[in-house]
């Protein structure tokens, strides 16, 4: 969910987004060249499609099973594939075809990848938890909107509805995602402790120790300073960008 929100700040995915996150006109720098633009359009279309596959997969599994429990298993593979694929977005920033900070994008994508692989995949007992569904739904809706936003921006043809959705739905989706993530990590704790997962204790010849259980608790604590900052930044962005467009519409 951290990724969801900061993504709405205008990082990751495809370019076509100038400084303040308003892609419809206030472009100060020149955008990516034609080849990079074509690549980014393809990238963002593929990602939109991928997350739609996940969305459809969830709906079909729900209808087939008749319940919303343990739906994770039906979309596990595309979820892993497309969320991990987002690592490319770090590369996009690094080579400059997307005008976002490498550090910020890395942080966002890594936090998602961490949740998918180092928590949900690694602690099998947690995969049937309802909290997993909570963040998967939040991420799915967010990403479908985000990647289509980038696609349209790159093509200079952004429907107001997409812009509105991107800067409004987060109000519910972000807390929803964060709740799902925190509950999942919390559910994983006893199993991590029991199995000593990813942990190393003294003595050993490299004189190093790592307690994954304690690390996960630290991660959960870190949500406390980070979540409000990102959330209120998004609220601020929303006021700036949506009112700006309203004014433009008045003068048309």
């Amino acid at each position, binding site marked *: 969910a951290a990724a969801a929100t900061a993504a709405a700040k205008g990082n990751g995915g495809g370019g076509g987004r100038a400084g303040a996150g308003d892609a419809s006109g206030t472009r100060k720098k020149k955008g990516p060249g034609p080849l990079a633009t074509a690549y980014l359009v393809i990238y963002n279309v593929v990602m939109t499609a991928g997350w739609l596959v996940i969305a459809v997969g969830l709906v079909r599994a729900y209808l087939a099973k008749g319940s919303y429990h343990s739906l994770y298993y039906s979309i596990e593979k595309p979820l892993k594939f497309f969320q991990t694929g987002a690592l490319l977005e770090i590369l996009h920033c690094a080579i400059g075809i997307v005008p976002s900070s490498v550090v910020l994008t890395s942080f966002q994508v890594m936090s998602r990848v961490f949740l998918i692989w180092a928590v949900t995949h690694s602690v099998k007992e947690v995969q049937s938890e309802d909290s997993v569904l909570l963040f998967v739904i939040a991420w799915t809706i967010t990403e479908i909107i985000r990647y289509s936003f980038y696609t349209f921006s790159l093509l200079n043809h952004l429907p107001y509805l997409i812009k509105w959705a991107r800067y409004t739905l987060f109000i519910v989706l972000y807390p929803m995602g964060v709740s799902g993530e925190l509950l999942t990590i919390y559910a994983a704790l006893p199993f991590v402790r029991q199995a000593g997962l990813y942990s190393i204790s*003294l*003595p050993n*010849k*490299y*004189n190093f*120790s790592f307690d994954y259980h304690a690390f996960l608790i630290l991660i959960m604590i870190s949500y406390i300073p980070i979540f409000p900052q990102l959330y209120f930044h998004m609220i601020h962005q929303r006021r700036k960008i949506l009112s700006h467009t309203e004014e433009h519409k008045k003068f048309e």
Partner: protein
Amino acid sequence: MKHYEVEILDAKTREKLCFLDKVEPHATIAEIKNLFTKPHPQWYPARQSLRLDPKGKSLKDEDILQKLPVGTTATLYFRDLGAQISWVTVFLTEYAGPLFIYLLFYFRVPFIYGHKYDFTSSRHTVVHLACICHSFHYVKRLLETLFVHRFSHGTMPLRNIFKNCTYYWGFAAWMAYYINHPLYTPPTYGAQQVKLALAIFVICQLGNFSIHMALRDLRPAGSKTRKIPYPTKNPFTWLFLLVSCPNYTYEVGSWIGFAIMTQCLPVALFSLVGFTQMTIWAKGKHRSYLKEFRDYPPLRMPIIPFLL
């Protein structure tokens, strides 16, 4: 002799902050900063950035008014650099911390390890040696700060002290915890490994000190001149033939030596992080040398001979 008039505007708001008349043509920016402080005492000279263009580069303290591209009424733009702290203060604080903190772990002060280990001593020679090396390293740094280094800038932003101290103190505690732990495992290759590592450490510490002395001798006390450093009679300085910043090269070497000596992963990680930061600094320094001196020796690399 005609006098200048200097008006100082806020770079962001363009508000007129100060008007100085009868300014000497050969007045320096430093002197103007002192004049500016009088009506605005909260903006002491170290926190003033004065420039000719609101978005341009800061003027240097040594720049002379009549040599600047201004008319007899000069307009300067002011930016507040924020609270400043002297480099010396920052260095002393960030180095004193690790020295003290490591010793807390070495002496196994209560509440770090289990109560049965309070104030006990390690039975491994290497642990005592490591304490001597670590302490020596930071004492050397403190003494160099007080007596050797000649700083170009007096101050840096205040927030840096929090950032820097977290880094140095945090890593010192992390390393010291493991090296002085009752369950510490000495190096795999025993005394041989420790002797080799100690040799590397000592050589690199001597090297690092030699470079600091050579750099100090390049610049007379109180001046801010910059010259190309060259090898001297001291063999440790011959590394200048191959790198621009051999002080960083030797520093990385010292920490690699310490890592081999203690065979402790956190030490290796600290060395890696330090190496990354020093490489960034070395590349910057190297670029400045190249820009400033046409005849800069082409064989030199920033930090690692021939490679980086």
